[in-house]
């Protein structure tokens, strides 16, 4: 392997009006290596990437590309210099064709006009190199996220990339798609491209990465060779603690097992989920395991009435129910914390107080107004109870950190006094400290007699609080684990077995 750095950042500083987001951070990427950039949320990863790609301008330090200082002013500049980025949510244009997306802004021209024939031919040729044999004249929106991501990578690399930054590219891919992505990453590595890989999945770090750079609270912790760094050490570095708290196993015991609260029989929806049976008792946590796209989120939505069921029956609190909207489910005594907190959860510009009382208010009806004083009491109570870090309940919720936002949304449903709470990926995108707190909270709620259904992609997490784990694969329920069977290995086997 080549050891001369293709991209070198020295003593980078970035200061925002309220925070010092990067403090003297160094980073060095070699040609032909895959380099993981890790850190908790808020550690400075994304700021560092934005500095590299010209989205932000640095307030101090140097960026050297092949030894020459560079000053990218925007992503266009960075691309011209040879630094390309592919984001998790695929920032391409769904309305343009695949070929247009690949050559946007650099279409081959003849007599000053775009030569569409050549654009399409070149694009098809290029994608063949990535084992993609698709019609490049169809709009991008025609293809799956995984294909779109490969197209984005092909575009980035084709723009004579020396450095390719992959920002959480695997978050929305299934296992097979991740494997083919890795194959291509190794390919590109062999071609001498330096790849920066940002991910939350530690397995993936060890699967493909050569070296690891870890950031913690805006500072560099260190640069490590992947092979020489154990998982515990890695988590320790990220958390700044000797041992992560996550390993704690404690399955719930449940005494009131016989009291079924929710019973699903053959619940399903065409093309979304095939018949699922499930029983949730009072005071128990049922975990939903499975990969992304396995039907976890779909099941949550179906139970809550966001999507309408096509088959099966739902019995809740002893009554057969047929929800046609979330409103019905809420009235019956359910709550759902959706997976995408920013898009489906918080009301950004409204205050913490308003975010907390809204579900309860809706449940009561618009004419039974909760007085301002009562609202403040509720909000203050939950801020204390869930130890939400804020000085003021009138602050817009968008100003809170991800973990605190999640707690506010939990409080929103607790205030509505449900008997069943569905949490879809409650710890997604929040830092590990808050992560542990939310797990403790789930246990506490369960002890108080609340029933919970929790979907999660983190096995340790499921093991930590579930009394029963349902495993989903390819939109089917494939296993139901209880008691001693609830451990990461068994769940993994159930997910993987065919």
């Amino acid at each position, binding site marked *: 392997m080549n050891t001369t750095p293709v991209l070198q950042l020295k003593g980078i500083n970035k200061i925002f009006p309220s925070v010092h987001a990067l403090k003297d951070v160094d980073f060095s990427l070699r040609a032909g290596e895959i380099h993981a950039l890790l850190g908790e949320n808020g550690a400075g990863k994304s700021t560092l990437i934005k500095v590299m790609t010209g989205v932000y301008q640095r307030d101090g330090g140097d960026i050297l590309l092949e030894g020459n200082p560079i000053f990218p002013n925007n992503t266009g500049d960075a691309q011209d210099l040879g630094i390309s980025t592919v984001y998790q949510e695929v920032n391409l244009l769904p309305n343009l064709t695949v070929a247009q997306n690949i050559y946007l802004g650099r279409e081959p021209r003849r007599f000053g006009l775009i030569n569409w024939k050549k654009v399409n031919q070149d694009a098809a040729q290029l994608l063949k190199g990535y084992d993609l044999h698709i019609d490049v004249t169809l709009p991008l929106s025609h293809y799956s996220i995984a294909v779109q991501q490969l197209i984005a990578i092909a575009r980035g690399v084709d723009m004579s990339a020396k450095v390719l930054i992959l920002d959480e590219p695997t978050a929305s891919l299934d296992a097979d798609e991740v494997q083919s992505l890795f194959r291509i990453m190794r390919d590109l590595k062999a071609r001498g491209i330096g790849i920066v890989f940002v991910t939350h999945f530690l397995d993936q770090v060890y699967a493909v990465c050569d070296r690891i750079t870890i950031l913690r609270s805006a500072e560099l912790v260190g640069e490590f060779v992947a092979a020489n760094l154990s998982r515990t050490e890695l988590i320790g570095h990220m958390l700044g603690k000797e041992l992560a708290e996550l390993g704690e196993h404690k399955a719930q015991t449940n005494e009131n097992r016989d009291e079924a609260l929710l019973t699903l029989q053959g619940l399903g929806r065409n093309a979304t989920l095939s018949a699922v049976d499930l029983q949730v008792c009072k005071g128990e946590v049922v975990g939903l395991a499975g990969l992304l796209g396995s039907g976890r989120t779909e099941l949550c939505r179906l139970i809550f009435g966001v999507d309408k069921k096509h088959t099966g029956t739902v019995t809740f609190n002893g009554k057969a129910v047929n929800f046609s909207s979330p*409103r019905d489910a809420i*009235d019956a005594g359910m709550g759902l914390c959706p997976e995408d907190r920013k898009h*489906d959860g918080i009301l*950004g510009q409204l205050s913490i107080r308003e975010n907390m009382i809204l579900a309860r*208010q*809706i449940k009561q009806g618009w004419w039974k107004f909760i007085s301002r004083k009562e609202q403040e009491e509720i909000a203050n109570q939950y801020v204390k109870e869930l130890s939400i870090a804020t000085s003021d309940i009138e*602050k817009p919720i968008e100003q809170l950190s991800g973990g605190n936002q999640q707690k506010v949304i939990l409080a929103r449903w607790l205030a509505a006094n449900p008997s069943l709470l569905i949490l879809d990926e409650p710890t997604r995108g929040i830092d590990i400290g808050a992560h542990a707190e939310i797990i403790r909270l789930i246990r506490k709620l369960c002890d108080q007699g609340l029933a919970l259904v929790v979907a999660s992609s983190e096995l340790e997490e499921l093991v930590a609080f579930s009394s029963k784990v349902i495993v989903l694969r390819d939109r089917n329920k494939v296993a139901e684990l209880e008691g001693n069977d609830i451990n990461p290995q068994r769940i993994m086997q159930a997910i993987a077995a065919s």
Partner: protein
Amino acid sequence: MNLTKNQNLRRYLWPCAGLLVLLIINAIIAPEFFHIEFKDGRFYGSLIDVLNRAAPVALLAIGMALVIATGGVDLSVGSIMAIAGAASAYYITKGVDNLAIIIGAGLLAGLIAGVINGLLVGYMSIQPIVATLILMVAGRGIAQLMNEGQIVTFDHAGFSFLGTGDFLGLPFPVVLVIITFIIVQLLTRRTALGLYIEAVGANPSASHYMGLNAKAIKMSVYCVAGLCAALAGMIAAADIKGSDANNAGLWLELDAILAVVIGGASLMGGRFSIFLAVIGALIIQTLTVTIILSGIPPKFNLLIKASAIIIVLLMQSPRFQQQLSQLNFWSKKKESNRV
């Protein structure tokens, strides 16, 4: 704690300060501006005049504030004014004397228009600018159809009272604004409706997950906007004792939107204040009076209004505020250098 309180205060500070400054300017160039006289059971004076003339836009702005809070906009309110005026005129010229029927017809026309807008925006999920554009274009045609292409004039003392009467010494249009303001304020702030509207505007998807029926909420705000517009249209028709399908409420939708924006609302939806929207309407009208009082020919009216809008919009832009503070920073630096 103080920080967020300050932010809330600042929302009210800017529009109110703007109105105050305009009023002070008026008082300086025309000392009689604040002079109010009580004669024949009614107040007279420039200030009362401003209130009276601002009434139609203020009514529109109340409805528009709610619509904009849901992230929408209603371009059809001017046309609805014309339709409502035409509907009332139709019954008067048909010889109907019952005021309830005449006013009811106007309000019903506004309500129907609101329901159409609500259906298009709420239930068919059509972009609000586009959805209400349909009625903006077709609405004047419908009003002309009702008037059979004529300017219909009428004489009905009871109906004319809407535009020219007075109550407790105040012009009746002003009274109508106050009544509408109180009703809408009670409806939105003494029930949860206001919060629902803000929630739908702030994040429609999250509101759906909480069981809010965004469709119904959008429907209701467009209906309120339609009713407010109908009221404004009837005031306008009563004022001139006639229904002019071409000119009634022409471009007033734009004034109403500006009133709401001047009142500090974001066109993206979310927070709203109908009080500030009314202040915005008053600012627009006061500005017009300021131009007349200062002796600038009225033909400069639009130009000055346009400049004022641009300034208000710029003041609201975070980027501009930042540039201003930098400017401040430099001038301060220069001063300290001189010392």
